[in-house]
């Protein structure tokens, strides 16, 4: 059922995240400030101070403790939230693995930011990409509206799959950009998030031990269990997105495509700035006679293998625009490596170029993206292309 009246607010990506947390009736929040995540913390503090959100807000002394505290709170049965960026995500990295292995439905927002050194407060996806293989469900949103919708969806997904979920988006380019965001009726959000009975919680009435020591006879089974659970979460993500669409009128799928129906050339990317500007470039390219399209990875983990294969089925060549550098890799782009794996496993052999751009928020001009299309048409590079850098 659709809502009767629309409530549209002008919100930054970070405020959209905070509004989603409020709507989701979160119980415990533990956060430590870091640019560009800070305004989420500020907004949530305001909600709690005004009594608009009935939650315990723990102002921890580090991101490591932020994630540790929400692990404890989630284990005790609370619905929890945390958020961080860049070095904060790195500091918490140890606990990322533990949170997913303990199968706790934590939701974390990550306005993505470049990693030190040199220190940069600006946007790229070095932080998120370094966390991509820690067993979390990872969404990368492309608008403030999607940040809002995805955080709400993430609670339902996490609490169904018993896995933590990360909702990433461009630091600054989205976290600090005011955009229209349609807010849901909070009562309806609460109905959408019914708090399913958790398999195990810390409760003296039903004492369990969490986080034991596993010998070689047992450890592998738990890791297999975890790998399987994350693969199977794909279905949950899709179902929840569809249900959310039915109820609130907005859904996104796991992979979003733009003008791909008849595209010969595609840019595959993630995040708001890269996707938005690639769309503008595809329009430009089509005006100039190139059948261009864009594929955006919304669900990064578990990887939407078949959706990517299908999206790129008809193209003659494609480029993967990555916003992070995995040093020393055969190709430095993390998404490129994933897509190359998909193509190799499925016997697809077509020109595919890895473009690196937008590192430390180097401006990705629409014109740059247009050049990717002409390059794909004329002579796809065999080498990784570091775009926008002075070489």
């Amino acid at each position: 059922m659709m809502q009767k009246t629309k409530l549209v607010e002008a919100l930054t990506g970070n405020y959209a995240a905070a509004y989603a947390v409020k709507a989701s009736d979160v119980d415990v929040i533990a956060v430590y400030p870091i640019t560009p995540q800070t305004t989420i913390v500020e907004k949530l503090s305001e909600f709690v101070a005004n009594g608009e959100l009935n939650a315990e807000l723990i102002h921890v002394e580090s991101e490591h403790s932020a994630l540790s505290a929400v692990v404890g709170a989630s284990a005790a049965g609370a619905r929890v939230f945390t958020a961080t960026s860049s070095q904060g995500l790195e500091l918490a990295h140890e606990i990322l693995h533990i949170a997913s292995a303990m199968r706790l439905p934590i939701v974390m927002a990550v306005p993505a930011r470049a990693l030190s050194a040199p220190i940069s407060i600006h946007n790229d996806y070095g932080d998120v990409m370094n966390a991509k293989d820690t067993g979390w469900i990872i969404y990368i949103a492309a608008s403030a509206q999607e940040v809002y919708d995805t955080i709400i969806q993430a609670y339902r997904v996490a609490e169904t799959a018993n896995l933590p979920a990360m909702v990433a988006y461009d630091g600054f380019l989205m976290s600090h950009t005011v955009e229209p965001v349609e807010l849901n009726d909070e009562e309806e959000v609460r109905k959408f998030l019914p708090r399913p009975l958790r398999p195990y919680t810390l409760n003296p009435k039903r004492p369990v031990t969490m986080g034991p020591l596993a010998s070689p006879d047992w450890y592998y089974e738990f890791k297999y269990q975890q790998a399987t659970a994350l693969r199977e979460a794909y279905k949950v993500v899709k179902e929840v997105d569809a249900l959310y669409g039915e109820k609130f009128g907005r859904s996104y799928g796991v992979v979003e495509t733009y003008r791909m129906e008849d595209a010969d050339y595609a840019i595959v990317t993630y995040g708001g700035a890269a996707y938005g500007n690639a769309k503008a470039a595809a329009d430009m390219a089509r005006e100039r006679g190139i059948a261009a399209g864009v594929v955006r990875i919304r669900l990064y983990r578990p990887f939407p293998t078949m959706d990517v294969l299908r999206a790129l089925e008809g193209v003659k060549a494609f480029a993967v625009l990555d916003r992070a550098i995995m040093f020393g890799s055969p190709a430095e782009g993390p998404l490129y490596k994933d897509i190359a794996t998909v193509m190799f496993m499925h016997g697809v052999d077509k020109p595919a170029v890895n473009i690196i751009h937008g590192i430390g928020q180097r401006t990705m001009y629409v014109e740059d993206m247009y050049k990717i299309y002409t390059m794909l048409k004329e002579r796809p590079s065999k080498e990784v292309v570091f775009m926008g850098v002075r070489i």
Partner: protein
Amino acid sequence: MKVYYKTLKDLPREELFAPGHRMCAGCGAAIAMRWITKTIGPNAVIANATGCVEVTTTPYPETAWMHPYIHVAFENSAAVASGVEAAIKTLKKKGRWDAGDTKVVVIAGDGGTYDIGLQSLSGMLERRHGILYILYDNEAYMNTGIQRSGSTPKYAWTTTTPVGTALRGKVQWKKDIMGIVMAHRVPYAATASVAYILDMVNKIKTALDYTEEGPTFLHIFAPCVPGWRYPENKTVEIARLAVETGYFPLYEWDHGKLKLNPPSNNHLDKSKRKPLKEYLKLQGRFAHLTEQEIAEIEKELDAYWEYLGKLTQL
């Protein structure tokens, strides 16, 4: 401290820490765990830091714990407990906590407290969470095989402070963890020993009750058979000598007042303390000490007692 148990007859009989765990024969920490679990009673959640106790009590698919128990990592047990406490608080407010007045207790070793866990401990104390944090101190990283920690005393042998020709055991003095905790102005902090169980359980109970006001802290001295190199039947004897020689004084910090507990309350007068040698000589980790080195340790200990004496005047 409030006296909940006057004699051994009053002590809780029910065992809430199952045998069959893999802690060493004669383990001092095992004695502490047994009495911690009995004293806090069943309505408590335990957050444990990585360490000897953690690995020996939770070999999947078995657990020695009868409480709801969580271990996450080494350095963050205070942060994990902060989350548990916050969760219980808010779930209670929202009518979704069905276990009544549940306490939250941290159990961590000296590595997880003095060193890698100090930051999260400080955060927990500063934020005034209603949590009882219990440190079991065996004065080194025993779980990884006896490496020096911030708690290891000067001149003690460990595998990373070997006794050689240039260096003779640990070079630095033991960190004053109680001083650090007291500086956070917590309602209650106390030292205790596995040799003085009645004193220890009354302190556990007192500290647990004071969590209504904020964080409380217990520093329990727990000898380690392989790490300290002594025969396994000597654990309690050594712990007792640590107190009797003044090496590990029993005291409590109760709302800004420091009070020495028996028998340490007589030990401001040095002549009432047994010679330190009696404590040191039972342990292989101190076997290499010269008279001069013992004298140096004694001097440092005297200075510490002088400092404690001043604290009792506050």
